[in-house]
């Protein structure tokens, strides 16, 4: 082909010839590059071209010695012969001289060869790296063990390569349908990418991942990385997991709740799936436990690959340990000393980063702040926080490169202990502390407490220093402390609430959770609490079987209370706002707090218009809806919008995903109408075009991923964790936004958002009630003396725990007056005896104790109405002026109590009925599709009426007192069965049956009301004493015993479900007896005075009796 000698002569004319000319270039490109070649490749070629020409320009060009060399196999030497590629026959390129075309073609050939060499070098390096991993030598042993035994345990320490290699070994050995579980979502994606890359499948589709809202799987997928939780969900659908042939359970030693449960399930599954292969992968921690659990499974033990690590014990001196007060901030001085020591001891050219393990976000904030100041001073450190509440983008920064001569100082929670692996760490500082959530079953409270770590975690932390070379681990505690640590950390199952687990077990038909063969069983008390809680929530019936609502809740991957909201919301046409609220409540709070815990005043001001006086769930609803509006207005603006308000947008994206999942679940269960389709073809086409464009953006982004490992900038001032990087993130399309647009129907979301923003007051009240019912029984009452306390000291009490504070992010923390009953005019009238019509109770989503116990996400509810409608038990005295809800909240209702109680009773019954129909229709609908269309659940008339009546009830204005009973009062609340008179009282409450209660005394009415069972009414004879009383309705004036009065009150009103409920003030429209209800109230009455057998209503009985009593009275 081309002859190299030509070049020299032509170089003389080179000045006139411009290679840089764009048109020339594009003409040449056109002729030689395939039409679809990426622009990136063309520009890469031209860069190569420039390099090549520069190189040629050097005097010792390639052809110098070529001509002078000894005779060889071929005449002369031409580098061209070293290339084993051939370009297709050349074409003429218009406007470019043939010689120039040749020059171009030669360069192109070299470029192709260069690409070959580069890719091959990468491939070879990859294979070498893989072969160098400790686990590589155990490949055969592992495969043999897997072939022979259904269960194999692979135990290997950090750096042995088990997580990335074992899946590939299995793939190479021909196994398919492999699932590999991980405790964390982020690890699923990272591993799938890594394994795909290593197995040269990066752009193929054999390796996939599946996490809650994202899946990269297709029919070609041979191995999938997924979270333990997701595999459990799949097992819930089909317990035999037929889709998988091999299950790899990675990080089994972490002993997370889901992982432990999964192992239990798999052990049960093995006999039913003899073909299934199970591989457990664990650090070398407590291996026997796993092996024995699976009947002595073979263990393949792989040494880790760690370089020697020097351990230095540097206990914190007492004056810096914060021993004086536990609430003080962490003293950063010991940590700074380590930074200084490193600067002092190691020259900056010796690379190696520092990883600091602290217990929590506040501690990280303290150390980052101090280290930042130090770094600004020395210019030798880039300080980066790392914890799970950071956005993904910020978490990713720990993988970026520091500039030369600068070290990274990563200040992390124990997330970096196992889940995030950062290369290049040479120094580790271990505080020896960890914050773990523990669950207090008695107070039903999550507690975030600081503990000493276990020896296993201390070793794990230390190991992080020796992954890439010899390292140093500074332990800020004494060696004797270390010796005193527990050997292993407490498994999660032994320290968290088990509600969700028990619910899931029930829905999988695993029988009694107490009998389940756990790897290590949870405390019996935790299980009992969970079962009790689920019963209380109505998810389990008294026989501990799943109720219809329970089975639905089991499918919702959220807390039970949030799940309940969703179901309830669908009833009243409030699906859209409940979906949103439930979703936002189920993600970590989007409100950002700076490290020190206080909120930027500007943020607070800009958040203010979004705040709802009803409570945090509704504030979150407003927030989400406002965000959706911003998003629908156009791209890009939402990021700034969130930043201005101090919000983590990522949480809102998560909430959107969750909302969609909830919506789909409810649709699957026919609790929601199916999605509307875009009507006309034009709209559909437009959507299609938009989606294609978005897909392209997403693809481009994904392909760009991995290539960029950015170099970190030295922070000049105190670049707070989020503010310093704005500019960087702002460039280019917002990939999160692209994904958002792709995944969600934005116009539908927007419609829902504007609908929610336009909710009327009554609708809001109803929503409040629905959310409240969902959250029930998580209630708290304000302390009666809150009025005298300052805003931040307002305290609240739940049934189980007294003295709880409002979480500082709560609306009520800033405006506690929303919760005080005495406002304006009422203050004068009611405050003396504590009577008011505005008492509020708080429903809350969770109770969290950090340094103090806090109520998280509170919603206020009108106390009387909420309690009457929601309480599981209502106990009354003889005339119902005193009502105790759930044995801890006392309502004093001097007037119209019975009326209210009776209405509440009726509303509850019809609410239950409608809800039951709704759930029943879903079950039928699921059973047979044909029937589905006909069975539409409760009629809209019924729902409409219930809605109206509930609203009327909520608006009732009655003066009452609200008080939390003291523990002593709670103990002596009931008269008990012995005192109860055997004589059946007149039938109260619209003819509902009254049965003597054998525990509390008094009479049970329906499922939750116990009449006349409260003790401590003082006078023993009160029951028998009659006093004069005028009925406000019929004007009857005569002496009554309390019981008689109640009976009269109940009867003297329009009874029966058909009866129109009187308007709140409308006690006037007196119908003494509705025509239809009358007969139901009549009962045989044997008059002891006149000895007549009569059929009378209770009122008539009283009248009748009065006749006999009249003469002596007059």
């Amino acid at each position, binding site marked *: 082909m081309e002859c190299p000698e030509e070049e020299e002569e032509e170089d003389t004319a080179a000045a006139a010839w411009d290679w840089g000319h764009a048109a020339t270039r594009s003409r040449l490109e056109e002729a030689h*590059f*395939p039409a679809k*070649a*990426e622009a990136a*490749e063309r520009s890469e070629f031209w860069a190569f071209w420039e390099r090549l020409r520069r*190189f040629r320009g050097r005097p010792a060009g*390639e052809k110098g*010695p*070529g001509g002078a*060399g*000894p005779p*060889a*196999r*071929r005449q*002369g*030497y031409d*580098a061209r*012969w*070293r*290339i*084993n*590629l*051939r*370009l*297709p026959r050349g074409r003429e390129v218009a406007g470019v001289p043939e010689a120039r075309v040749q020059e171009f073609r030669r360069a192109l050939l*070299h470029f*192709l*060869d*260069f*690409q*070959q*060499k580069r*890719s*091959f*070098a*990468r*491939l*070879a*390096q990859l*294979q070498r790296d893989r072969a160098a991993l400790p686990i590589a030598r155990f490949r055969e042993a592992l495969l043999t063990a897997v072939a022979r035994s259904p269960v194999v345990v692979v135990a290997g320490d950090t750096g042995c390569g088990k997580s990335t290699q074992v899946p590939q070994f299995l793939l190479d050995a021909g196994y398919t349908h492999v699932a590999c579980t991980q405790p964390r979502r982020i690890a699923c994606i990272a591993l799938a990418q890594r394994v795909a*890359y290593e197995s*040269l*499948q*990066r*752009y193929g589709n054999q390796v996939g991942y599946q996490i809650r809202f994202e899946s990269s799987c297709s029919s070609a997928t041979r191995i999938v990385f997924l979270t333990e939780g997701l595999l459990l969900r799949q097992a819930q659908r089909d317990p035999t997991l037929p889709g998988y042939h091999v299950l790899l359970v990675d990080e089994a030693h972490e002993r997370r709740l889901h992982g432990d449960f999964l192992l239990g399930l798999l052990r049960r599954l093995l006999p039913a799936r003899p073909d299934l292969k199970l591989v457990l992968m664990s650090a070398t921690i407590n291996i026997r436990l796993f092996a024995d659990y699976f009947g002595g499974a073979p263990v393949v033990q792989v040494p880790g690959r760690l370089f020697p690590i020097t351990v230095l014990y540097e206990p914190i001196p007492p004056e810096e340990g914060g021993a004086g007060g536990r609430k003080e901030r962490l003293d950063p001085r010991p940590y700074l000393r380590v930074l200084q020591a490193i600067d002092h001891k190691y020259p900056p050219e010796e690379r190696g980063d520092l990883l600091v393990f602290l217990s929590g976000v506040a501690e990280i904030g303290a150390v980052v702040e101090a280290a930042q100041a130090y770094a600004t001073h020395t210019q030798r450190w880039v300080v980066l926080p790392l914890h799970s509440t950071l956005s993904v983008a910020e978490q990713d920064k720990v993988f970026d490169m520091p500039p030369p001569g600068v070290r990274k100082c990563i200040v992390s929670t124990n997330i970096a202990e196992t889940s995030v692996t950062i290369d290049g760490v040479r120094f580790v500082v271990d505080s020896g502390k960890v914050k773990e959530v523990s669950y207090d079953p008695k107070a039903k409270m999550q507690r975030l407490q600081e503990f000493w770590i276990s020896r296993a975690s201390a070793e794990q932390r230390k190991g992080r220093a020796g992954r890439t070379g010899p390292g140093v681990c500074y332990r800020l505690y004494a060696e004797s402390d270390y010796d005193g640590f527990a050997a292993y950390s407490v498994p999660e199952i032994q320290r968290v609430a088990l509600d969700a687990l028990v619910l899931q077990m029930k829905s999988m038909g695993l029988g009694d959770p107490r009998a389940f063969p756990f790897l290590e069983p949870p405390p019996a008390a935790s299980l009992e609490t969970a079962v009790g809680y689920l019963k209380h929530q109505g998810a389990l019936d008294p026989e501990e079987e799943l109720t219809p609502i329970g089975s639905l809740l089991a499918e919702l991957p959220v807390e039970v209370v949030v799940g309940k909201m969703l179901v309830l919301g669908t009833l009243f046409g409030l699906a859209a706002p409940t979906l949103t609220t439930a979703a936002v409540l189920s993600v970590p709070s989007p409100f950002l707090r700076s490290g020190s815990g206080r909120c930027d005043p500007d943020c607070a001001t800009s958040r203010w218009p979004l705040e709802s006086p009803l409570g945090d769930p509704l504030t979150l609803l407003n927030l989400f809806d406002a965000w959706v509006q911003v998003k629908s207005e156009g791209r890009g603006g939402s990021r700034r919008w969130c930043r201005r308000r101090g919000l983590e947008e990522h949480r809102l994206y998560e909430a959107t995903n969750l909302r969609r999942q909830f919506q789909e679940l409810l649709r699957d269960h026919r609790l929601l109408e199916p999605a509307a389709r875009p009507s006309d073809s034009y709209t559909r086409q437009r959507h299609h075009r938009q989606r294609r464009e978005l897909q392209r953006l997403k693809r481009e982004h994904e*392909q760009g991923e991995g290539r960029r490992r950015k170099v970190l900038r030295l922070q000049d001032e105190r670049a707070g964790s989020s503010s310093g990087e704005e500019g960087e993130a702002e460039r280019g399309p917002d990939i999160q936004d692209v994904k958002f647009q792709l995944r969600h129907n934005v116009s539908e979301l927007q419609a829902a958002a504007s609908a929610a923003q336009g909710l009327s007051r009554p609708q809001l009240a109803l929503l409040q009630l629905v959310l409240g019912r969902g959250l029930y029984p998580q209630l708290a009452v304000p302390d009666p003396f809150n009025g005298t306390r300052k805003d931040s000291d307002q305290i609240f009490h739940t049934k189980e725990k007294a003295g709880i504070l409002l979480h500082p992010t709560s609306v009520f923390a800033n405006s506690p007056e929303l919760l005080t009953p005495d406002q304006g005019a009422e203050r004068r009238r009611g405050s003396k005896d504590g009577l008011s019509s505005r008492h509020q109770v708080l429903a809350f989503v969770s109770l969290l104790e950090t340094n103090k116990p806090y109520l998280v996400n509170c919603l206020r509810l009108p106390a009387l109405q909420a309690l009457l409608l929601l309480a599981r038990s209502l106990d009354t005295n003889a005339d119902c002026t005193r009502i105790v809800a759930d044995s801890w909240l006392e309502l004093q209702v001097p007037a119209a109590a019975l009326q209210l109680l009776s209405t509440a009773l009726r509303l509850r019954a019809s609410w239950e009925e409608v809800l039951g129909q709704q759930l029943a229709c879903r079950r039928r609908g699921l059973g047979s599709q044909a029937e589905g269309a006909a069975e539409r659940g409760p009629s809209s008339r019924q729902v409409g009426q219930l809605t109206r009546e509930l609203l009327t009830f909520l608006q009732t204005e009655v003066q009452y007192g609200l008080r939390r009973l003291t523990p002593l009062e709670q103990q002596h609340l009931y008269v008990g069965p012995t005192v109860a008179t055997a004589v059946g009282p007149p039938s109260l409450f619209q003819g509902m049956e009254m049965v003597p209660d054998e525990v509390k005394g008094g009479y049970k009415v329906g499922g939750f009301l116990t009449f006349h069972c409260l003790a401590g009414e003082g006078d023993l004879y009160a029951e028998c004493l009659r006093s004069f009383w005028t009925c406000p309705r019929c004007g009857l004036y005569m002496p009554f015993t309390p019981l008689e009065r109640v009976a009269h009150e109940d009867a003297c009103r329009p009874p029966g479900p058909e009866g129109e409920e009187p308007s709140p003030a409308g006690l006037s429209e007196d119908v003494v007896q509705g025509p239809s209800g009358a007969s139901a109230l009549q009962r045989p009455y044997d008059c002891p005075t006149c000895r007549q057998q009569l059929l009378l209503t209770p009122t008539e009985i009283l009248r009748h009796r009065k006749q006999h009593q009249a003469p002596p009275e007059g």
Partner: protein
Amino acid sequence: MESSKEPPLQGTFECELCGLRVPYSYYGQKPPNTYSVTLLEDSYVMRDPFTPEKDKFLILGSECSLCSKRVCVGTDCSLFYAKRFCLPCANLHLEEFPLEIKQDLEKRIRSKPQSSRKGDSKDRKKK
């Protein structure tokens, strides 16, 4: 793996010198979808795993023109100069190559313990 002269169109390529094992998807001189770039020797080829472009291929190795050993294109294993020579064969016939190749081969032998990547880049610069 197989020792027949005509390898199957797909399988696993294994270098007989360094033991590199990689699955290949094509054997021959005209890899599919490659905008008609052809090869000057029958080679084991896979889709380039490091680029998203589907029509990029990667040559893994081929057979030595003298001893027919299957060798990878890595600089520690083989040399291409109009034909493929495995390094042992190339060294046997060192004198028959042009000076540039001889120098290059000697350099390879000297730098063998080092990572071949380094040698690779030097090689590249020479051109």
